[in-house]
């Protein structure tokens, strides 16, 4: 089973963080111990889906990167009750949402090796079956490092020409970094599109398997990141599709 999985998109707005939260939750619903780390230091956000706000975040990834705490000390048990019932667990390592701390990372940087140690340390200390990395869109140091330590990479894209071009760059770099397993998730596909045709087009273009083609779902948009969709609406067809993707990733 994959231990470290990066979920990435070349451009913002693809629904990457939302999908990361949902895929992680689905994996945890299978009774697994799952970690989610927000390496999107410049524009963090995945904590919102787990109901955390600024007041709840005492220590964040930033503190670890600056050597002010251990990586486990920045991990929060956010296991939702349906996951507890199934014997799984979800830990979240958020990035700081405080403007001053984001500014400090941008100005001062940090020891990138420490991030790598932290990722490996989390898997070990929290005895994780799987660690999902919610990366910063585009390519930066954290993203490249995350990819290079990952056992699998899922790239999220919309059926859009800008996304298509950017995904080609990501795929090329991931190949150069020799990521063992790569897959694409096409998200926010308008109802008018033929999902089968989209899948075929994308697989042919990149030579990378497509793990799922997900529709642009009004119900997901309405939830507006106020919760994890697959937990709120487990019987929704979209939740079934995301569960299938989670099963592919952690298989």
């Amino acid at each position, binding site marked *: 089973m994959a231990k470290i999985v990066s979920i990435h998109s070349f451009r913002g707005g693809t629904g990457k963080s939302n999908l990361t939260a949902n895929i992680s939750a689905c994996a945890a619903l299978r009774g697994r111990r799952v970690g989610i780390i927000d390496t999107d230091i410049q524009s963090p956000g995945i904590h919102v889906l787990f109901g955390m706000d600024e007041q709840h975040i005492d220590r964040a990834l930033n503190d670890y990167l600056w050597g002010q705490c251990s990586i486990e000390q920045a991990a929060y048990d956010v296991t939702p009750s349906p996951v507890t019932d199934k014997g799984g667990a979800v830990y979240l390592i958020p990035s700081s949402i405080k403007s001053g701390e984001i500014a400090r990372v941008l100005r001062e940087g940090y020891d990138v*090796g420490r991030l*790598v140690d932290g990722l490996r340390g989390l898997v070990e200390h929290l005895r994780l079956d799987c660690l999902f990395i919610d990366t910063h869109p585009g390519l930066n140091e954290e993203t490249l*490092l995350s990819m290079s330590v990952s056992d699998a990479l899922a790239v999220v894209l919309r059926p859009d020409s800008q996304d298509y071009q950017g995904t080609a760059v990501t795929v090329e*770099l991931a190949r150069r970094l020799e990521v063992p397993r790569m897959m694409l998730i096409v998200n926010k596909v308008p109802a008018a599109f033929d999902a089968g045709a989209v899948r075929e087009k994308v697989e042919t273009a990149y030579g990378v398997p497509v793990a799922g083609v997900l529709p642009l779902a009004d119900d997901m948009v309405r939830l507006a990141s106020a919760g994890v969709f697959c937990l709120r609406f487990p019987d929704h067809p979209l939740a079934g599709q995301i569960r299938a993707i989670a099963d592919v990733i952690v298989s």
Partner: protein
Amino acid sequence: MPSTSTQRDDLAALVRDTKAAASPLRTYLKELHERLAAVRDGAPASYIPELAIANPDWFGLSIVTCDGRSYGVGDCEQPFTIQSISKPLVYGLALETHGRDYVLSRVGVEPTGDAFNSLIRLDEKSKRPHNPMVNAGAIATASLIRGSDSTDRLKKLLAMFRRYVGREVQVDMSVFVSERTTGHRNRAIAHLMLNFGMIDADVDGALDLYFQQCSVLVTSRDLAVIAATLANGGVNPITKERALDAQYVRDVLSLMYTCGMYDYAGEWAHSVGLPAKSGVGGGIMASAPGKLGVGVFSPPLDARGNSVRGIKACQAISGDLGLHMFDGTRDPSPLLAK
């Protein structure tokens, strides 16, 4: 998409750096560094005042592979004087200048089992010092470096260092002056050799070049690059520039193997199993032919003049990575996987 060669180089460099940062070897080095930083034995060299002021906490640990990957933890960019680690390199330069037969007629290849600064073990019958790694042999080797004048010889020396480390190097003037004014023992050795007809008349010229070569400033990363260059058949694996004629690499490495660690050479060859050279500045370099170079810097020395942490680091790296040259029982370490 990469279109020009510069862009391709940039992409390749980015990928290489990322892989190095994410490598389990870097994590291994970090843990090793943490473990050995706690070792408090030994003391910095005190025979010249400039070396005695080194910070005993400085500790840099570097590895450069023959395919050009570079890993480092701790004080890898802290400059220090190369001291005796310059000896095999200058020996290589002498070989390139005069050829193997002539150099062999002037400096032997026999280990002495004596300390680095041993005075009188000069082989009067053969009119040559025992080997180029003890001070007598190194001074005789320095006397073989040709140039129109002392400046020209120094320029040749610095150009050689530049090829090995891939950047311009400097001589630490205060250490050079300190060595020159307090190096009575070396001066005595040189004059003894002159007396025996082992070196040419320009004793002061040879001594100056010797003190200059010892005072070249390097970092532990530089040492790893030098060691990797020797491990890579004489070609710097990062700049791809040749630093030593391929035919003389074996001379340099075999001398490092038998004589590089002074009176610790035998035990070193047995336990670590790699050609290496130490310096009283606190540096040690070790070459694993075809694989990698190790560079360590930590000023506290043991009684034999070898860096305490440096020796422990090389022992651990050789053991953990399966680098001993004569150990056929080990599979390639997964830590060295790309």
